[in-house]
Structures are given as C-alpha cells and as structure tokens.
C-alpha cells in the first residue's frame, strides 16, 4: 500500500465546526422554551419558518456559487443564524418578516461577502436591523406575556390561532387583543412620567416584567453552558454586561426619575442574548481575548447610549453592527504579548 505523505500534526481532536454549531443550537433551547412559555407558540413557528427559509437560501447560494451543498449545509451555521433571528423578532410578526430576514441574513450579509467565515457583519443582526428600519410596526409589536392577560398559559393564542395570525395576519381582533409595547418601549415613550410612575402605572412593567427577566435568565443559562463547554470565552459577555451595568447604575444613581435602573438594562430586551450569542460570534467580532473585552465594552456602551438617547427602544443590533465595523481595527491593537516578547505588538504591521 502506498504511504501517504502529509504535514504534521498527524492527529487531530474530534472537534468539528458542526459540533460547535450544534452546541450553540442546544444553548438556545432554554430561551426558546422560555419564549414559548411566556408568549405562546409564535416563537416556535417563527423558528421553523426561519430555519426552513435559511437552509433553502443557503442551498441556493451554495449552488450558485458552485460550492458543495451538503458539505456546507452540514456545518449548521445557517441554522444558528436563522434561530437567533427567529428568537429576536416578535413572536407574532407576519411570516414574510422572518423570511425577508433570513434572505437578508443568508444571501446579503453572508454569501455576498464570501460565505461562512468571510462576513464582516453578524448576519442575524444585519437582518434584524434591516427589518427594524423597514417594518417598524411589525417589528415592535410584541404580544403580551400570558401573565398580563390571564392566569395561565391557556390565555395565549392556541397553536392554530397562532398559525393564523402569522400567516394570514387578518385577525385584527386577536392582534389588538394581544399586542403591546415592550418594557423598553414603555420606558422610552413614557410621556412626562418619571421612571417610578412608569413602573407603577404600566402593567407591562409592574406585572409583566418578570416574563422578560425569565427570558433573559434563559439566555444566560445557555451562555453559561457555552462557556462551560468552551465554545465561547467569558471575555465579551462579561465586558459587555459589566459596562452596561456600570453606565446604567451611574446614570440611575444621578437621576433615578429619568433613567431606567440597571436591572432593567440587563434583564430586559436583547442584552443577554446579545452578550452570549451575538457579541461572541467569532466571525464578525474581535478575535483575541483582549480584543473581545474591548469589543464587549464597545457594545455595552453603545447599547446604553442608543437606548437612552437614540430613537430606537432597543439597540443591540445597531451596537453590534457598529462594533463589527471596528473589529478589524480592535484586532490590530489587541494582540497578546507573545512568548519571549517584552510587550505586545500594536498596529497593522507592514511598512517596517
């Protein structure tokens, strides 16, 4: 038998990209369960829609780009993008919202840039930002969690009803009955009320905020699992959450009637999902451990700034996209100190 001639190393760890992606999928499970528990079947339907359309778009793109279809479909990256997108949009958004979203994510944000590994922006966040700007009404109509409309989970739309809302979108009675503003929106468009008054008077905060806290806790669980399984490192999430907590504490301490308290910033909205699942996307974020910290700080600060003084209630997508732009620059200035060097190199290099 002819012996094969290969470069070292001759062994490798059974460690594959699809395994990494599978772990990420597994880590989104708590959030999916929490969303379904509090908001009904919507998220699950969105998830199926997003996954199907994303895989389809991925296959078409691979075919057009003359790449092996099965080989790349198996890596699971399209699925991860689809699921993050599906879990980020309102559970009862019309079906075409999520389909346009996966088209944007897979075709425009990923394959037009050269496919997996080459996209400068997080595909799910590109899609989310595009949807938010293009369809602000659909994208901000979250239905109320069951704790606000009834005693039990049964108060939510049943599965056929959910399907009807998403696919036909004509049942205004159902939609009007169930949709409402999210806590962040309420805090943003508060009229002349102080933070305290908002908390007291608006049921989504006074009674319903625990639904959002529960969902954030579920994302946190998934994130901790990923850190434990060494899929992601603690750097970016830790930096992002700390800076967000720090900034919101500072402002809240200075003027509690005008600014939301730090626990709202951490526990409501997309903070936890962004910290553990978006700010840790290896492709589009900074890569070295120090870089991840800088990246996380940037995202956390931008989220606070845009939430507080911008015109959108939540800011994760914009913060991530802005920091994606800065990631290559951060990478050049956050090299670790290599063995045997007194200090780390800085800058781009070249032109010695």
């Amino acid at each position, binding site marked *: *038998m*002819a*012996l*094969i*001639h*290969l*470069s*070292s*190393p*001759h*062994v*490798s*760890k059974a*460690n*594959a*990209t699809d*395994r*990494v992606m599978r772990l990420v999928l597994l880590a989104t499970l708590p959030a999916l369960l929490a969303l379904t528990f509090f908001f009904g079947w919507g998220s699950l339907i969105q998830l199926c829609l997003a996954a199907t359309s994303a895989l389809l778009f991925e296959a078409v793109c691979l075919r057009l780009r003359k790449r092996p279809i099965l*080989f*790349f479909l198996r*890596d699971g*990256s399209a699925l991860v993008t689809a699921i993050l997108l599906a879990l980020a949009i309102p559970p009862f958004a019309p079906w075409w919202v999520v389909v346009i979203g996966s088209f944007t994510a897979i075709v425009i944000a990923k394959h037009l840039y050269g*496919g*997996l*590994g*080459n996209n400068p922006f997080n595909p799910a966040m590109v899609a989310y930002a595009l949807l938010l700007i293009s369809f602000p009404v659909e994208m901000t109509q979250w239905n109320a969690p069951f704790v606000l409309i009834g005693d039990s989970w049964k108060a939510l739309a049943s599965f056929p009803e959910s399907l009807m809302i998403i696919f036909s979108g004509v049942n205004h009675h159902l939609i009007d009955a169930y949709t409402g503003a999210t806590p962040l929106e309420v805090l943003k468009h508060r009229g002349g009320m102080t933070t305290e008054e908002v908390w007291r008077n608006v049921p989504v905060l006074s009674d319903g905020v625990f639904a959002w806290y529960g969902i954030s806790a579920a994302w946190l669980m998934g994130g901790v699992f990923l850190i434990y399984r*060494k*899929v992601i*490192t603690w750097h970016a999430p830790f930096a992002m959450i700390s800076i967000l907590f720090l900034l919101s504490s500072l402002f809240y301490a200075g003027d509690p009637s005008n600014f939301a308290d730090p626990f709202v910033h951490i526990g409501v909205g997309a903070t936890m999902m962004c910290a553990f699942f978006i700010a840790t996307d*290896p*492709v589009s974020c900074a*890569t*070295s*451990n120090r870089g991840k910290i800088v990246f996380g700080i940037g995202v956390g600060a931008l989220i606070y700034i845009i939430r507080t003084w911008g015109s959108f209630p939540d800011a994760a997508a914009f913060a991530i996209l802005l920091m994606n732009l800065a990631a290559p620059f951060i*990478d050049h200035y956050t*090299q*670790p*100190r*290599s*063995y*045997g*060097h*007194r200090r780390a*190199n800085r*800058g*781009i*290099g*070249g*032109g*010695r």
Partner: protein
Amino acid sequence: MTRLYSFHGGVHPPENKRQSLGAPIRQAPLPARLILPLQQHIGKPATPLVAVGDTVLKGQKIAEPSGHVSAAIHAPSSGSITYIGLQPVPHASGLESPCIVIETDGQEQWIERQPLTDYQQLDKQALIRHIRNAGIAGLGGAGFPTDIKLNLGRDHIVNTLIINAAECEPYITADDALMRERPDEILSGIEIIAHLLQPSHILIGIEDNKPNAIKALRDAIRARKLPIDLVVVPTRYPSGGEKQLIQLLTGIEVASGSIPADVGIVCQNVGTAAAIYRAVILGEPLISRIVTLTGFALGHRQNYEVLIGTPFSVLLESAEVDRSRMFRLVMGGPMMGISIEDDRIPVIKTTNCIIAATREEMPPSPPAQPCIRCGMCEQVCPASLLPQQLFWFAKGREFDKARHHNLFDCIECGACAYVCPSNIPLVQHYRFAKSEIRNEEAEQLKAAQARERFEARQARLAREEQEKEQRRKERAEAAAREQARKKAEAEQADAGEQDPEAELKKLKTAASIARTKLKKARDALKNAQEKGLDGTDKLEATVLQLEQSAQAAEQAWQNATGVQH
C-alpha cells in the same frame, strides 16, 4: 521542592504510550547495510574520511565535522564502505542527501576505545573536544551538536542546567524506557555536563505520566546523593518544548531571537546525557540510540536499541509489520513528526520514534472548512500567538502582517491544528509563510547586492568615461597647441622666403585656366552665331574680356619663367 510555573495553552492528545512500554528495550538486528547521512541536524554536513572500498571498524570515525555547527559520524558496525553518494534520508520533503553506505561484516569488531574515566582531572576544552569527536548531537529533537552547548560556560554564566525528560509527544517512550532501565547512565552523563557548565541548580523536568521512570530516577538520585531536583510537571503537550519546559520549571521566558544560555539556562535531553556518559566513561561514540517502534500496523510495539544508519524497513520487519494495514509511516511523534514515503531511509541521531499507523489510527484529515476565527487555536498556542490571524495573513500572502503578529515565534508544535474544528492544516500554512518570507528576504538580499554591484559598475564606467574624456581633451589641446605652433612657424617661413617654384606653378595653372575659359567662351559664341540666337553681343564682350585676361596670365607666366631662367 521547586515551585512549578505554567505556560500558556497546550493540549492533551491521547497519549498512546502504553502499547510500546510492555517489554524492555530490545536489541535491533544488525542490518546488512548501514546508511549514514553526512548531515543529520542543522549546520554543515560532515566531511567523509573514508573512500569506497575501505574497511572500517565499529566506532571508527568515518566523517569529521566541517565548521562550528557540525558533528562527526562513526561507523556503527565493522564492514566495508560500498558507496558514498546520494540516498533517500529522513526529510520533510522526501529529498536525497549525501550518505556513506557500509556493508556490515557481522563481526562487530570494535576499534580501540578511548575512555576518559579521569575526566575531572582533564582540561575542560580537552573534554569538550572528546565529546565533539564522539559525534554527540541532541537526541531530543533538533540534533544540535552538543559540544557547542557545553562550551557555553565560556562566555555565559550558566545558573541552571535543565535536563529535559518531559517526552511530551504522544506515542514516544524512548526516553521513558531509557530512564526506567538506565537511570545511572543518565545521572553519570548529567555529572559530566555539570562538571563542564558548573551550574548552581540542576533540574530534571519530567511529565507525570511516567511514574516508573520517575521512581527509577528518584531512587538513583537518592542512592548517589546528587544535588538534582526532579520536577514532575503535569502532562500537557508541548511541555517538552525547550522554551516551554524552561517556563514551566523557572518561570523565565527566553526572549524572542535569543538562546536559553542568554538567561543562564542550558537544556539537555536525557538521551544526550546518557550518550555523553557512554562517550566519556566507556569511550563509545554515538553509534546507536533508542527508538520507539509503535503504531497498530506493527506486531511488536516496543523500544529498540538501534544502530544509527539502520534502514526503517529492517526495523519494521523485525517488529513484524503488517504492510497491508500500514497507512501512514511517521518519524517522530504524531504532533511534529514527518511522514515518510520510503521505508528504506535510515535511522539518524534524532530518530526517537517510528509510528507505523493504520488508517483508523491516523486517518487522513477531512476536507478543511472555512476558518470562523473561533479562537480555539489561540487558547492552546504555547507561544501566545493569534494562530487564527496568522492563518488569514498566510493565506492572503500578507507576510508583513504575519511577521508583525510574530509568525517567527511559532514553534510549529501543531497544537492549533490539533484543536481546529475546521480541520485547517494551520502549521502547513505557517511553514509556507515562513519559507516565503525567507525566500523573499534572500531575494531582497540578492537584489540589494546586485544593485550595489550594478551601481558600483555604473560609477566605475562613469569614472572611466570621464577620465577618457579628460585625456581626449588634453590630447586635443596638445594637438591644437602643436598645430598653432606649426602654423606660426610656417608663417614665419613664408614671411622670410617665398617659394619660387610654387609661384611659377600657380601662374602656369592660372594661365591654363584662362585659356580653357576663353576656349569655352569662343565655342559658345560660335555656336550662338551659327544658330542666330540673341545676346551674342554679350558673349562677344565676355570673349574679349577673357582674351585679355588670358593674355595677361600668359604674360605673367612668361615673365616669371623668364625671370627664373
């Protein structure tokens, strides 16, 4: 107890060491032919001292070092030289290189051995010369000639001597077997090294997956009451890398681009220490070493005492290889070893392990997926590099950036490629980038030299041209001066005395010219008159005028002639 430090990153691949430790070291068969490459390490190849047809004895020096970084080669057995020339050798690219081939006679007849049992009384330089003459090179990995490292005491202060017994690569157990069976040889070797370097600390670094070797060494150290610290380090590849072991044991980093001796440390492998003992105390040059034969394509997986120059095929047969199952043949460990296509190549001084792997054991890696910069490589890199970034730079041929990210501090340990979930052959990319940069530098140097030469030539040509121009000018000036002088002389002569002969000639010519002109004019006039043309009167006047001038010229000539005669 010495404090233990740690190094960044590292991996823990399956050890696969058990299978070759079941039996003691076994003597490998004497092959019919021994192939001895003249170069078995970095530096210069040795120069042969023998010719084809010579008979040699076991231990006879057959090639001597040429230059500083070079090692002598000895006949591993007695026999005759049958060939000196190119042969396939262990090389990452499967190249051939000059070798001496010995046909063994089976007598194993030793040359007279020259032990130096009283080495402590000897001059250190003489002892180092003896070790150099024994052809000892580092048996751990790179095969660096040992005498150079032992000579470091002259211009460096060596505080710490580290004996590398980590043997961190999977599969390899050659050092482990040596430590279990011959701890005293190792300790005697260490004593000789310590005598030469006079370190204040001696540390042996050994991974905790070798309990038997640890026990053997510890007992031997205790029995001899030697001031040696045996430091057990956790099993984590690449703890046996020189720089990593130094960091583990001392917490010191060797600065990029410098050698351990610059921070007062010298590292030697346990195998090298035993070889030094044999060279000094027994007078035996380096002609054999311990090689681990392992891999699931072999029937007997164990350590062999092998003569340098023994072809792999002889060893594989002796270990009952199943060639139908052998898929990949590796010299060295699975992390840094080189794959071998031709099993006729010989064992050299740095061959610590031969792995005859089956397909299941070392399958071809699946096709590479795109890099998603997951950073797992960064977490395991023992040099604290950013392998993911280096990969992009190597792939994009952005070599300046690769250098800026300290590409040349990569030790090619393979930890990054081992953990890469996308199965990217990262080390191969780095080797490519390094060789491209080296080539580029060589090209640049060549270009710079060529430019210098060209500029020097241009300057020389310009200078010569200028000198020529100068000479030409000088000559022209001289010529002009000469001409002026001559002219002046001629004028002086003219003024003094007219040449009568020339004057006469002139007058004669003038007269004849006048005559010719007159004749032509007359002809023209005649012609005109015959044809009855206008303007004959003008012609007539001309003829008349010419007649007068011709007469005058004639007259002048006549007069002159008359005067002369």
